[in-house]
């Protein structure tokens, strides 16, 4: 590794060359010739633009390779990718790519002297909260996850028409029971209410439909779901390009701007982010959901339909046109560079250890690694909007809806990112096939639906020469009211005041999401789903002590 960090960055497996003083040929004690492996020189160049030069020679004849600093960055990225791929287990990979740096110990701080290397402030990650703290921050959430959003999820559930009668009957009973027994006076009560309600809703839905894949699926209640990632493109925001004047030097007591919070110590403008999510429940399966758009580096040619054989030519053309229009709109709004600091968007640094947990622990030997549907509480959105005083005028019309979208974008990206790491992919070894998951957001009354497709994780570098045309996708729909009011007799009414019962659209959508069968794409049938995990080690993981204890074999 080119840049040493304090956590376990180097392992014995990937250490290649001996020290530079060793020669490639030498004699041992008995005089025999010993051959050492070739010496790999360390990479001395800096990964940032070179300074203006200290003398006339440096100024007039600068090294062209040092002009941008992109070369060393790309070299480092490539080497990191090779080393991450060489690591045999998922936990080692996650530990290797994690940007976490532990705080200095008391001993280190006490006995530090001025002639020692300075104690660099440990790197922190910006905490991404699914319920945005900042006002009007959807574009920032889309940037840090490199996601394009699109309205409408019908394309995913086209051929599904589930009956809702039984589900409605069960859900009405659950709803009545919860509304009459559980308090919603405080915000904590509301969160507890919606979490419990969503868990019961899932049970009711599972009891209302019959499907083979749901029988085999894993259901987790209140699972641990968190993930971290690094996003490049913050160089301008960090302010490294501005040169300090003599006045600045005198004012700040240093010759260059301070390292930005969350950035690498080389000042690359690559900030770390972490999302610690709280799902009410998750359903996972052993097979991945089929993606709607195929991974392809050509943005225009990547538009393919999920069931291309089943659709007519006209509808496919219509879909392509919509997609092109969306791409233009999205690209106009944002560029490849961030405009503002995460703090200006209401985020705060998080110094807790970073780890990946997409609903299960990495070393648990879990085989249900692909997300199907996640259910999450969204009651905080209403509270945040009421605190802001969001009115129903034109200026604020979309603020609440965009909070739902931002929540879906961050939650789905975080979950899918964790799933990808559990499958052996990292930000240095990008996905070889897309990952898809569905999400239901609700506060017990309003329901919002989203489907996320993770196409790329290689968003942690923004250097010249590194081209990544892939975008992650998020389709959304809602929010819809499950009911408008409830009378004293326990009957639910719709908004018009005449229709009795629950919203059929919501009920139908929930069942459709559950009934979407996770069948791998045709291209994935004979393909390795974990190309960066050696098969032998994967088997070893299953036979590990932890798994055997869990199974009661040890």
């Amino acid at each position, binding site marked *: 590794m080119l840049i040493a960090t304090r956590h376990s960055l180097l392992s014995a497996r990937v250490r290649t060359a001996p020290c530079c003083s060793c020669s490639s040929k030498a004699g041992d004690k008995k005089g025999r010739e010993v051959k050492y492996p070739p010496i790999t020189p360390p990479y001395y160049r800096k990964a940032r633009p070179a300074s203006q030069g200290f003398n006339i020679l440096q100024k007039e004849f600068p090294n062209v390779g040092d002009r941008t600093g992109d070369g060393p960055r790309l070299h480092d990225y490539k080497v990191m990718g090779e080393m991450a791929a060489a690591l045999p287990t998922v936990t080692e990979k996650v530990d290797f790519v994690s940007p976490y740096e532990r705080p200095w110990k008391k001993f280190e701080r006490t006995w530090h002297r001025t002639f020692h290397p300075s104690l660099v402030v440990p790197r922190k990650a910006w905490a991404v909260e699914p319920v945005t703290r900042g*006002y009007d921050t959807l574009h920032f959430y889309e940037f840090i996850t490199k996601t394009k959003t699109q309205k409408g999820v019908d394309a995913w559930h086209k051929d599904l028409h589930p009956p809702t009668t039984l589900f409605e009957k069960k859900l009405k009973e659950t709803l009545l029971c919860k509304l009459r027994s559980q308090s919603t006076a405080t915000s904590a009560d509301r969160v507890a209410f919606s979490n419990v309600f969503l868990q019961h809703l899932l049970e009711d839905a599972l009891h209302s439909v019959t499907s083979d894949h749901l029988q085999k699926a894993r259901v987790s209640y209140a699972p641990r779901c968190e993930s971290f990632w690094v996003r490049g493109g913050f160089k301008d*925001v960090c302010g490294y390009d501005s040169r300090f004047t003599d006045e600045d030097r005198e004012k700040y007591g240093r010759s260059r701007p301070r390292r930005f919070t969350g950035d690498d110590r080389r000042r690359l403008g690559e900030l770390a982010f972490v999302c610690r999510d709280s799902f009410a429940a998750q359903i996972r399966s052993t097979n991945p959901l089929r993606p709607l758009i195929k991974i392809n580096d050509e943005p225009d040619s990547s538009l393919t339909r999920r069931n291309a054989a089943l659709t007519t030519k006209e509808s496919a053309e219509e879909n392509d046109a919509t997609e092109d229009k969306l791409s233009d709109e999205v690209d106009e709004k944002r560029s490849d560079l961030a405009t503002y600091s995460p703090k200006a968007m209401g985020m705060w640094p998080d110094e807790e250890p970073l780890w990946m947990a997409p609903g299960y622990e990495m070393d648990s030997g879990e085989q249900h690694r692909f997300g199907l549907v996640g259910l999450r509480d969204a009651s905080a959105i209403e509270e945040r909007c009421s605190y*802001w005083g969001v009115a129903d005028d034109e200026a604020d019309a979309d603020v609440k809806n965009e909070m739902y979208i931002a929540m879906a974008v961050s939650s789905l990206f975080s979950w899918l990112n964790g799933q990808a790491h559990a499958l052996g992919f990292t930000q240095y070894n990008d996905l070889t096939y897309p990952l898809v998951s569905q999400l239901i957001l609700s506060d017990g009354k309003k329901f919002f639906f989203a489907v996320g497709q993770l196409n790329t994780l290689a968003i942690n570098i923004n250097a010249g020469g590194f081209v990544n045309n892939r975008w992650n996708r998020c389709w959304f729909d809602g929010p819809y009211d499950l009911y408008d009011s409830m009378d004293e007799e326990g009957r639910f009414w719709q908004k018009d005041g005449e229709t009795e019962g629950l919203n059929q659209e919501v009920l139908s959508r929930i069942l459709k999401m559950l009934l979407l069968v996770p069948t791998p794409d045709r291209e994935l049938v004979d393909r390795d789903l974990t190309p960066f995990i050696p098969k032998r080690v994967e088997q070893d993981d299953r036979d590990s002590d932890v798994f055997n204890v869990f199974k009661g074999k040890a």
Partner: protein
Amino acid sequence: MTTRLYRAWQPGNPQNRVFLPNFWIKLLNRASKGPKALPENVLYFEVHPQMTRHDVREYLTKIYELPVRDVNTRVKMGKIEWDSVDTKTRRALWKEDDKKFAYVTMCRGFKHDFPNLFPDDEIEKETSQVERHKELMRNLERNAKAASRDRNDVGTWFGL
């Protein structure tokens, strides 16, 4: 706040005082780029140190009728002057007052450009730039003369 201390009010007593806070707010120019850059709908103020977020919101909405959505505050500690460099044994001689700053987010589409308070400065700036350029040219001429002092006024086209 008033400087005069008044008897503590007890429940049931008449409300015979008017609360007249000496709160103040000062609009500052925000950075347009870099780590401190703010979106267009966010205004940057220095406020009275005892003002809370709620006070700032009330101040701007009730008096100026601005469409305030969110308020964040930050306290910047005043500079301390120490008697020695040694961090373990040093003592404070003087400390400047703390300052409180507020970042106020307005509704979507709100725009505000900080006014140019001292437009005359630009003229002075331009004048000084011309003067600097003249000085630079004089120096260059002097250097050229010094460099060609042994050329006995031979035309410049012979050499560089």
